Structures are given as structure tokens and as C-alpha cells.
């Protein structure tokens, strides 16, 4: 049956992705839920929760709040908290509850700004889509809202989009920054990881944008259109042991399952192999090769692996491919196995 998961547990949802982008930006983020969605984000999808403090809260909705559409009370609570915690902006993240009652997120945004005096971003995620959809929505909203000033371009400044724990399993940006500095960039900023809202405001200073996940493409396109900042897609964070095992393959039919840019980057390390990349997440056609596929169901993964000798994927997918007799190379993806997989 379609949409019936018999072997996998659900992958990281859109609300987790949106929260991950906003996490370090110094705002007050409110998940518009009853408590469980915030618990999922804080207790599972956000490894920084135990390392870096952030003002991320649940709206604590109750049935009558939803039934009566008490947006005014939500905004009043938001205003209360703005008096208790310093913040540069506020954000409201959607879940299934506002989706069912068709909450007007634009109205929430306006009401909140009027009441708190702070800029507000309201993102209509609904928990049914996957994390990169939520990340994409958050990146685009952030840059459209805050990256508006055209500043002199710094020729040696690189901006990186997509650096989130759900994409990379990392909670700090230093490894990527060091790697990029080794390539000649003097100033490297990973938007939303080890950097705050100020860097987003100064995004037009960047000479180039590196996008490491399809979730950053829309924001990168906005920066290109608005400031003329060029961007490229790549994933410079491939685990060394995965690269070593991939480079050793010869004459194999290989299936790589990951987020698209990570899979593409690993494909470049294969020699004399046929390869297709598959992803459960966003598949940007302009960065795909013939045969690359987007997977939405367990059976599609089984079909994709059927004619392959090697599967390179997160361990969690082994459950779906129990009958697969070929070689398995583990390529962790936090948005798949999450805290349970301890891939960070």
C-alpha cells in the first residue's frame, strides 16, 4: 500500500528542517503545536539542543485554542516572552494542527509584528513534508526578509547554504570553514551555523555562494537575482571512510542514497562504475543525471536497488533492503537515522 511504512520510521519532517535553519539566529521560534512536535524537534532532530541554547518553544496549543482559532492568545503569549528573552526577530513554525484548521500565517505574521515590534517570519510547514522542504522555506524567507542591503562585495568571502545538522550530522561549522579556507577563501560563513542574523543581513558581501543541499537552492537563486552573487552546488563534507570505500569500487553497478548534492559529490569518486543517485528528499532536475530518481515509498527503494551490486546509504535503509545480497557501504544521513543513529 502506498504511504504505508513497514520497515522505516518517518524521516525528518519539514517543521524540523525549518527550526534547524533558524536555530542559531537569535530569534524566538515558536512551534505552533500542542507539545509533541516540539519534543520531536528538540529531542530528536536537533542535536544542538544539548549543546547550544536557543529560544525554541512550543505554543502549547490545546483543543479549544485550535477549535476557536485563538490566534490572538498565541500572539499575546509571544509578546509576553519577548519581554522575558532578548531576541532579534520572532518565527512561527507550522505543524499539522494549524494545517487542519487552515491558520492564516500571513495574518499571524502581521499580528505578531504589530504586537511585539519585532520582525516575524511565519512558515506554513505542516509536518507532512520532509525536512529539506522546511529548510528551503526558511532559508528563502530569511534572505528575502533580511538580506536586502547591497554591500560592497568581498572578493574572498564565501557564503555556505545548507549547513544544518539534518544535512550533515554536524553541530559546528569549523571543519567546513577550515576546508574552504584551505581552498583560498579568506572569510567563510555558514549561514545559520556558528553565525547569526547579522551574517544573513550582510549576505550581499559574499563573492560566491556554495550550496551543499537542495534546500539552499531557492535562497541562492534569490541572492543571485538580487545581488548577482553566483552559486555552485557541491558537498565538501563526505566522510573519508565512505570516499575510501567508494574509490575502491571497480566495474560495479552502484546506488547512492542520500540528499542529492551529497550523493552527486560521492558519485565523482567512482571509477569505472555505473551509478545512479536516489533521494527521498528534494531532487533538483538541473543537478541530476539521467537515471537519478526520487524515492517516495519503500518499494521504490527496493526496485532501485534490484539491479545494483553496491548500495551506499544510511544504515537505516538496510531494513527496507533486507533481501539485498550485494555490498553495503554505510553513508550516514542525520535526517534519516537522526538521534537514534548517532551519526553526528
Amino acid at each position, binding site marked *: *500500500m502506498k*504511504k*504505508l*511504512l*513497514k520497515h*522505516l*520510521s*518517518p*524521516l*525528518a519532517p*519539514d*517543521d*524540523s528542517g525549518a527550526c534547524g535553519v533558524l536555530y542559531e539566529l537569535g530569534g524566538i521560534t*515558536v512551534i505552533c*503545536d*500542542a*507539545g*509533541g*512536535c*516540539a*519534543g*520531536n*524537534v*528538540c*529531542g*530528536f*532532530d536537533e542535536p544542538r*539542543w544539548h549543546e547550544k541554547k536557543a*529560544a*525554541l*518553544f*512550543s*505554543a*502549547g*496549543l*490545546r*483543543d479549544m485554542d*485550535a*477549535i476557536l482559532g485563538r490566534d490572538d492568545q498565541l500572539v499575546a*503569549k509571544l509578546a509576553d*516572552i519577548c*519581554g*522575558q*528573552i*532578548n531576541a532579534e526577530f520572532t518565527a512561527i513554525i507550522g*505543524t*499539522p*494542527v494549524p*494545517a*487542519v*484548521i487552515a491558520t492564516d500565517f500571513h495574518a499571524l505574521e502581521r499580528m505578531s509584528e504589530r504586537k511585539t515590534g519585532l520582525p516575524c517570519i511565519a512558515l506554513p510547514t*505542516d*509536518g*507532512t*513534508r520532509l525536512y529539506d522542504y522546511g529548510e528551503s522555506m526558511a532559508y528563502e524567507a530569511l534572505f528575502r526578509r533580511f538580506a536586502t542591503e547591497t554591500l560592497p562585495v568581498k572578493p574572498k568571502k564565501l557564503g555556505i547554504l545548507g549547513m544544518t545538522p539534518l544535512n550533515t550530522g554536524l553541530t559546528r561549522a569549523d571543519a567546513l570553514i577550515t576546508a574552504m579556507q584551505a581552498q583560498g577563501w579568506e572569510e567563510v560563513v555558514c549561514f545559520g551555523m556558528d553565525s547569526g542574523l547579522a551574517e544573513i543581513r550582510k549576505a550581499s558581501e559574499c563573492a560566491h555562494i556554495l550550496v551543499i543541499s537542495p534546500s539552499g537552492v531557492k535562497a541562492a537563486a534569490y541572492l543571485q537575482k538580487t545581488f548577482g552573487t553566483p552559486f555552485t552546488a557541491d558537498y565538501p563534507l563526505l566522510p573519508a571512510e565512505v570516499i575510501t570505500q567508494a574509490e575502491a569500487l571497480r566495474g560495479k553497478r552502484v546506488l547512492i542514497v542520500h540528499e542529492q548534492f551529497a550523493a552527486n559529490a560521492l558519485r565523482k569518486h567512482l571509477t569505472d562504475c555505473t551509478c545512479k543517485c536516489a533521494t527521498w528528499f528534494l531532487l533538483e532536475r538541473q543537478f541530476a543525471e539521467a537515471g537519478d530518481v526520487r524515492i517516495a515509498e519503500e518499494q521504490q527503494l527496493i526496485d532501485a536497488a534490484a539491479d545494483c551490486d553496491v548500495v551506499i546509504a544510511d544504515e*537505516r535503509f538496510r531494513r527496507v533492503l533486507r533481501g539485498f545480497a550485494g555490498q553495503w557501504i554505510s553513508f550516514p544521513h542525520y535526517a534519516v*537515522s*537522526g*538521534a*537514534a543513529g548517532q551519526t553526528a
Partner: protein
Amino acid sequence: MAQTAYYITAAELAARGQADIPHELLSAKHFIYSSPATLDFNSPGAKGFGVKRAGLVIPESVMLLVAPGCCGRNTALLDELGYSERFFYLMLDDTDIVTGRYLTKIPKACAEIAAELDKKPSAIMICVTCVDALLGTDMERVCRSSTEAAGVPAVPAYMYALTREKRLPPMALARKSIYSLLEKQPRKSDECAIMGYFSALEDGCEIYDLLRGAGIRKIHEIGRCQTFAEYREISRANFSIVLNAEARYAAQDMEKNLGIPFIELVRLFRIDKIRNQYRGLGQAIGVTFDDAPYYEEAAAAIAALKQQYGDLHFAVGECMNADSFELALALTEYGFHVSEIYGTIGERNFIFLKKLAELSPETRIFSNLSPTMLNYCRETEIDAVIGADAMYYHPELPGVHFQGEEQPFGYRGVTLLFTQLAEAMRLREGGSV
């Protein structure tokens, strides 16, 4: 702009009264901080016995979670506890949650699951979430259709976080569901059931000895049932002992449907009150318990801690197997000090707070769920802490989680707590913690 965690002293709170609890202590009045200290508490479905895991306490059952992906995301945490083969997910998309069209797919999904498993499950728990709470889904009807389609009993599990403060909150509904498959059969006068927790009482709990001494030969607990056949034997109980108020509704159902009466007891840490409670239980079932040895053992554990470490100052949390305020009162009555409590005050435990205010008026009461806890830092004297949340706030202090799956109760609970505290103090003195 306030940059400190909100607190109120016990005296101030008692003076305000139950009708005037400050908004900062009422979760419905502010946003909720899912602090790392309280994730197990505030994340239904996570590692503890949330609705999902509780639903699977019926032996040989499986669960179908019918929800958007976000609701089932953290279920993977239960894999390490051996549940990976027992969860299935029917994922909803945005059209589903607007139209409710997925309801017709649930029986088909149940049939597919039952057909695919090597061994037919004893039941399929159909877990629904806030979406169905808002849509008003008739789960009884869905379960009837699913039972028919799968040839296996289908039972609802309501993970309705939206109704957490209602008369029948999710965990009370879960308890009703897990006993709902019991069928009426002749009761046996020498059998009883202990209800309230999803896992069993700690093996050394005196209640087993006391009941056996009273002629009870078989004590049923759902947490000890290994097979569905054992589970079905629960309805042979002559009476039930309810140890958690959230199981009262399940016990009422069993009384009505199976003819099994029940008695309610409370988990306490004041040994004189424990003694009174056992006296009451004895009167109800017509026996006199000899609980003196257990009382003495618990009293000795308390005295040993006091003798060795003096009048310790404690911080008491709520992520543990005790009521924060009753335990704080017990500690105070035993001559210790309670500097801080991180807890949830309400109708159930305000009476303990009032007594605590008389003995320890300056005790500071914080709400774990208040966003201001983001600013928490210690300002009082604390020597040791109790509870996973208190340990999070004070990682440098000796403490005990006291949050194990084996449930402490009665004198044995007191003995275990004070023994563990003494051990934590000893280890810290030796520099091993």
C-alpha cells in the same frame, strides 16, 4: 527585561492558594520550553512510556501510527528497546488531513500488516494524533472496520497532545485502551491485579509479600505479561489495586464490564502515611498487614543518610518516579532541607505544598516548562539533587535520576531512594562521579 528564571516561594504560593497559581507555573498560560531537562516528560512517544510505547504493552501486539510524518519521527528511539518490528506507519499528506480520505485506508493497512507478519499479532493498536482529535474521527468505528478487515482486534490509542489537561488525558485513555481487550471470566478469590504503571513494580516491593501473606496467590501486572494468554488472565482478578490516578478510568471500566472492584493507593515517601495506607488496604480486604520490618528498613535508610551526611539541602525535580511536592515534604519532615523544586503544581498535589510551606516557606518553586528556565542559574544552597531534570540543571552535584522502569512503591521505594542517595554522595566524596 527579566533575564532570570521565574520562581515563587512555597509560602507565597500557599498564600495565593490553588485558585491563584501564577501564570508562570501554568503551562496553558505560556509557551512551553521543551528543555533538555524535561524532554522525556514533554515528548509523548519518546523514550519513556508515552502513548506509543504504552499501547504496545499488550503482549504480541503491533501499532499502526496514522499521522503526518512528524508525529512518528522520534519513534526510532524505541528501536533500541526492541520495538522496531512492532511499529508501522500510515503517512498522511496535506490532502489527507484536510479531507480525511485516509480513514478508508486504515482497514486496508491493518489487513496488509496482519497478512505480512509471520505470526498474527494479538492486536493492532491504531494510534492517532492531533489531526484526528480536531477532525473528530470516530475511532471506535474505524477500529470495528479494521478488526473485520484484518481478522485481529484493532484498538484505538489516542495520542492527543491537544487534550493533555482534559478529564481524560492521553495517558489515561492509553490505560483504558490497553485493558480493553480483557474479557469477562470467573474471578478467583486468591488473585488480584495491580494497575497504574506500564512496567512492573520493583521486585523487592513489600506489597507482594503483604498480599501473599493475605492469601493472594497470583498478582497480575500488565508489565509482567510475556504472552497474550497471560494478559487475558488479568480478568480473573478478584480485585484491582490502582497505584496511579490515571488508571482510575480503566479500573472503572473493568469494574463495570468485568465486575472487578478496585482500591486506589498513592505512591508516597512519608513512611507514616505509607503505614496508614496499608492499614486502609488491609481493612478493605479484611486482613491486618505486618508491615513493621519494611517500615523499619525504610526508616533505617533515611537515618543512615542523615547520620552520615547531615541535614542535606536538596533540589527536587519532576522527571522521576515520585510526586515532586510529596517527596519534598517527606524530605523536609525527615529533617532535610529542600531548596528548590522543579515541578508542576495542581489540584492533586497542592495539599502537599501547603504543608511544605509551613515547614519550609523559603523553598523556591520553578516550572520546568516556563520559557524563563532558559535563564536558570543556581542561587541557593544545594548539596544533592533528585530527578533527571534536577540533574540536568546541576550536573556538578551528586544526584539520582530515580526514573527507572521498575517502579518504586511503598516502603521499598523509600529504601531504594535513600540508599541510592547515600551511594551518590559516597561516590561524589570519592571523586568517582
